[in-house]
């Protein structure tokens, strides 16, 4: 008995180690190389941990703002010394600002749209209820690449190319079905009696929603906020199509532009990628419980 117990412990330990390695090793390598100079990063075989840790890659992100990139200083910074920073580096911080503004706006609008719709579909008996649920479910299946051409032409016609508004509208459209889906499941799990009691006590539909159900639905609201934020923060394809300058470019677009620059130092790209993943990673760790319950609720019914 004791031996099998020991064997079980050993097996679980090994499996956990493999698990952690699979999930964290790539991230760890990214983090490690973001603290290495270009000279160190190009060593063969690689230094798994930086021998001389440096923060110059991160400094480059935050200082590049004032530094005009000219032919001379571009030439000066040779690849070996890590002086190469892309001409688009100064766009990174503004683009993160754009990403935050857009994500925030999408989150707020998304709640305003999804909450009443989900409540109506879950708790009110009305003609067209099934039809609206089916429409909502269907729209989850449309691939985003199929939206690109019609959205692009529409946005162009409205003169909204390269504006944050175009991204806010499209992200809203992308995120609403999923939010409604999660909220619908949650509202359905709350007892109908609350609805009847509130109505008997003279609440309007609006009051029933805001005073009775919303406080109870808080966990699912948190999940919706997180998903909407992450989707907006991470989205790339539509942002790539609709944005051109720092007026609207989001973080993924700017980071991706580094990748197509052949001269650029990988140490700098790594630092930029680390900066880009910090907000999502913090969210994932802090709100793990909400995310997991939201994901399971959102998917199991689908």
């Amino acid at each position, binding site marked *: 008995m004791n031996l099998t117990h020991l064997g079980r412990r050993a097996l679980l330990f090994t499996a956990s180690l493999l698990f952690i390695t699979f*999930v964290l090793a790539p991230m760890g390598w990214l983090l490690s190389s973001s603290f290495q100079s270009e000279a160190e990063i190009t060593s063969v075989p690689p230094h798994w941990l930086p021998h001389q840790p440096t923060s110059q890659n991160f400094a480059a992100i935050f200082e590049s703002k004032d530094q005009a990139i000219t032919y001379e200083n571009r030439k000066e910074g040779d690849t070996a010394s890590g002086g190469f920073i892309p001409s688009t580096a100064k766009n990174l911080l503004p683009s993160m600002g754009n990403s935050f503004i857009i994500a925030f706006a999408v989150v707020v609008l998304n709640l305003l749209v999804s909450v009443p719709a989900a409540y109506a579909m879950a708790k009110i008996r009305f003609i067209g209820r099934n039809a609206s649920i089916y429409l909502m479910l269907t729209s989850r299946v449309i691939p985003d690449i199929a939206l690109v051409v019609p959205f692009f032409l529409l946005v162009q016609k409205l003169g909204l190319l390269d504006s944050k508004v175009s991204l806010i509208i499209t992200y809203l459209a992308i995120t609403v079905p999923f939010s409604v889906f999660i909220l619908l499941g949650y509202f359905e799990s709350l007892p109908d009696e609350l609805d009847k009691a509130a109505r008997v006590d003279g609440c309007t539909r609006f009051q029933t929603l805001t005073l009775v159900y919303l406080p109870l639905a808080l966990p699912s609201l948190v999940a919706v906020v997180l998903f909407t934020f992450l989707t907006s923060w991470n989205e790339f*394809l539509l942002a790539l199509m609709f944005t051109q300058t720092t007026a609207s470019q989001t973080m993924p677009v700017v980071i991706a532009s580094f990748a197509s620059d052949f001269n650029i130092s990988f140490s700098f790209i790594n630092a930029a990628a680390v900066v880009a993943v910090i907000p999502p990673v913090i969210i994932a760790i802090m709100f793990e419980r909400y995310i997991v319950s939201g994901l399971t609720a959102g*998917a199991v019914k689908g």
Partner: protein
Amino acid sequence: MNTKSSMLPKALRYPVSAYDQKSAMVFLAPMMLVLMVIAVFPIVYSLWISLFDLKLTRPNRAPFVWFDNYALIFHDPMFWSSVGRTTSFTLMSVAGIMFIAMLMALLLNEQFRGRRILSTVLLIPWAIPYVANGLMWKWIYDSGYGALNGLLFQLGFIDKYMVLLGDVNKTMFLITNAFVWKEVPLATILLLVTLKSVGADLYRAAQVDGANVWQRFIHITLPALKPGFMLVMIYETMMAIRHFDLFFILTEGGPAEASHVVAWAVYVETFRKLAFGTGAAMAYIMAIATFMLAFFIIRTMGKKL
């Protein structure tokens, strides 16, 4: 009131109150507007555009060509080879995701110290942007200085660094790996929920009957996981078919079109060649294929919804 109740299905025993109907309409209006934008408008408008020979290189002349764009695409061997690549990418990804996610879910289903840490860490790949994921793997796969080459070299598997993403025989596997890494967490969570629904009694009963670990896995765990597997399969199939970001970051369809998948082809057609007509047609074909797949799956297993 009379007309309203006559419109009701017989299943509704009580008439819908006019107030409820009105408030439901008001509550639903914003969502309907949004669904118009995301579902109805693109479906109709895409189909319309796909019937024109619309090229942004000459925006003023866009003749109506009926279904010529579709014919053009279906006669293009390049399109069919990209369909093949999307299919193999999807099959490899879904198989890899399901296998790794199953192992991870089985581990997380056990009770042991440190389990919480694992399940928290698991969410990290899920949460990060695909662009950052792509850059991370691009650096790992780097032929000159990357970690993969370094690791294989230090472990003695290779004598000298090899070309990775630039090798037509390796590139799709490497992209698949990057995709699987990012998608495994969600699949694990979904499978874990399914596992949790299996009663411990069942295992105990099987143990009493003398079933060993392997037999219990085959006869209890695997069948119990079936709904979870189906769910993961549906979701990840759709994700893989439409996936674009990694192809953009890692290879841009190369080398020598080795990673020229359908999603990438739509992008090239639309935003590199500026042929919006054929681009829209191609996207439409993709959307319909995805729809049919979803419909098929919902018909076969969506009964309990």
